[in-house]
């Protein structure tokens, strides 16, 4: 039946367990983990097309009809993200093959990456709030291990804050779940939505919704991003790229899901608050991106800016704004992975982290320079590339809703993103070359190939936007009309 929608979780989970027993066989681990992720991508393409034919799919575990059992719900929004996650993580995995080093590969690197992906996919697919908490924990525990793996001093110091803040926010999540269960007596998201629509979202429920807002803001780095730049700068490139591309996106997904499906009745309070938080995030992230000399810090602050930008779409909550956010979310998973990989490669090649100490890289590594240039343009939203359409739609949404302050901040931040990256580009790629031809570290194909693949994806996503727009429109339609989701989940449960 619909068993296939559990596959994006089951495949990585099972393979990761098998890989634990194959510890000495690194080649086998590499091949198996890559196969698992590619298989996940293929399965999610199938699911995505099947949703277009049959509407929102669901899978009741153990045959318990909703709202009694735990279930997976696959709509276009979640499966689009699952698909992008699978593709981008397999590309990052290819980068890891030639960069992560034997020490990591011996210490269960691949199993934990797959567990992380299983947790991420589970969070995207689940239709139950408590189950979302559990998948968050699966993802976070895997991320705790990945961020501390290697055990360098800086890494441990930064990651203890990351772990502590995430543990705390997990307990707040549980607190919100407890209150919500006490108030409406259910945890199935569709059922929650239906019940809240029945009783009306009173002050009590609005306060509970703000607890969820705080929790997911901590996870996604909306306003509460103080932990993000430090901890994303510490781990090795491949892991940092996985984090930068995926982890915050799960928090953003949860924000979109809860505030379009469950708590959408009081937009004057909750959505205004999201708007204010997004605005401050945009400003704070922009200041951070300009202030630092360390490439890793600049890149991490770019993650923060994007979070604010995507949530402008949710704050204005118009159909076109949400479409823009969904599109930009997909684009950003790709482009942040690319940015982290390129920055990491530059640090690997020069052995320096500050932009002041690098110079003239374009002479030694021309392709790397052009790829960075391409990524920069895509992030700034230059038309043929993938960032453009998302920015356009979010901008249109803001105009429709009349939120001109958010609009101005969103596009001003775009210029600052461009400036911060241009600063990296001009300092590191232009100027006198500092690496003589004898000292030049050869840029291995294994490092360059993933960056090229991601660059090609951003061009493809920009040029072929028509193709993906069908899915994005459907995703936005389901988000804007919660009854589609509710009907799909509860039709037979009544």
């Amino acid at each position, binding site marked *: 039946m619909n068993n296939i929608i559990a596959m994006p979780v089951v495949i990585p989970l099972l393979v990761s367990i098998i890989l634990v027993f194959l510890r000495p066989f690194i080649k086998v681990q590499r091949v198996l983990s890559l196969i698992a992720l590619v298989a996940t991508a293929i399965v999610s393409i199938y699911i995505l097309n099947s949703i277009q034919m049959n509407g929102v799919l669901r899978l009741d575990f153990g045959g318990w009809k909703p709202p009694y059992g735990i279930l997976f719900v696959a709509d276009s929004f979640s499966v689009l993200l699952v698909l992008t996650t699978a593709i981008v993580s397999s590309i990052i995995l290819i980068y890891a093959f030639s960069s992560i080093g034997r020490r990591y590969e011996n210490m269960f690197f691949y199993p934990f990456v797959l567990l992380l992906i299983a947790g991420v996919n589970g969070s995207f697919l689940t239709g139950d709030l408590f189950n979302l908490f559990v998948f968050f924990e699966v993802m976070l525990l895997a991320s705790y291990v990945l961020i501390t793996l290697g*055990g360098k001093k800086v890494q441990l110091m930064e990651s203890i*804050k990351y772990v502590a803040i995430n543990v705390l926010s997990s307990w707040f999540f549980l607190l919100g779940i407890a209150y919500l269960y006490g108030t409406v007596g259910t945890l199935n998201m569709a059922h929650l939505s239906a019940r809240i629509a029945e009783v009306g979202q009173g002050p009590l429920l609005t306060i509970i919704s703000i607890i969820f807002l705080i929790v997911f803001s901590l996870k996604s780095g909306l306003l509460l991003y103080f932990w993000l730049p430090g901890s994303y700068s510490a781990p090795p490139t491949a892991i940092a790229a996985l984090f930068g591309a995926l982890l915050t996106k799960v928090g953003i997904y949860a924000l979109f899901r809860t505030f379009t499906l469950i708590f959408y009745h009081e937009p004057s309070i909750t959505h205004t608050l999201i708007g204010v938080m997004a605005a401050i995030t945009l400003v704070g992230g922009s200041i951070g991106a300009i202030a630092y000399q360390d490439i890793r810090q600049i890149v991490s602050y770019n993650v923060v800016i994007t979070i604010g930008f995507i949530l402008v779409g949710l704050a204005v909550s118009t159909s076109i704004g949400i479409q823009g956010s969904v599109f930009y979310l997909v684009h950003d998973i790709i482009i942040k992975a690319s940015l982290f990989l390129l920055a990491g490669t530059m640090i690997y090649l020069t052995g320096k982290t500050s932009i002041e100490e690098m110079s003239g890289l374009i002479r030694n590594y021309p392709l790397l320079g052009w790829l960075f240039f391409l990524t920069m343009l895509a992030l700034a939203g230059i038309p043929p590339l993938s960032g453009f359409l998302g920015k356009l739609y979010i901008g249109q949404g803001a105009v429709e809703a009349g939120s001109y302050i958010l609009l101005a901040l969103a596009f001003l931040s775009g210029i600052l993103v461009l400036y911060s990256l241009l600063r990296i580009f001009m300092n590191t790629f232009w100027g006198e070359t500092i690496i003589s031809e004898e000292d030049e570290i050869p840029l291995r194909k294994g490092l360059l190939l993933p960056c090229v693949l991601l660059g090609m994806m951003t061009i493809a996503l920009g040029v072929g936007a028509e193709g993906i727009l069908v899915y994005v429109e459907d995703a936005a339609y389901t988000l804007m009309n919660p009854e589609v989701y509710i009907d799909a989940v509860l039709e037979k449960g009544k």
Partner: protein
Amino acid sequence: METLITILVGVLVAVAVYLLLSRSVIRIILGSAVLSHAIHLLLMVMGGLKKGGVPLIGEETENFADALPQALILTAIVISFAVTAFLLVLAYRTYQEAGSDDLQELRGFKNE
């Protein structure tokens, strides 16, 4: 009974917040552990305490107790156990590397 447990939850949260606000890593970990216990208790209270019989077919009562919070708590306890264990190990490793458990001194990047 519910009121009493709610007050207990409040006390636990107060203790947890006090511990979390300190600078020592070990206290923060203990604080997060206490907070998790407080929230597990809260989950139980939210389901209602002692409302009826055991929720099994064949029990001869009018009302059945709500079994869901128990299941949630069980899952949450396992997670909090795993997370706290991980945090303790991480704190010990950090202490070994950095020679301090004061969060003020645990700055990874100097030029912040």
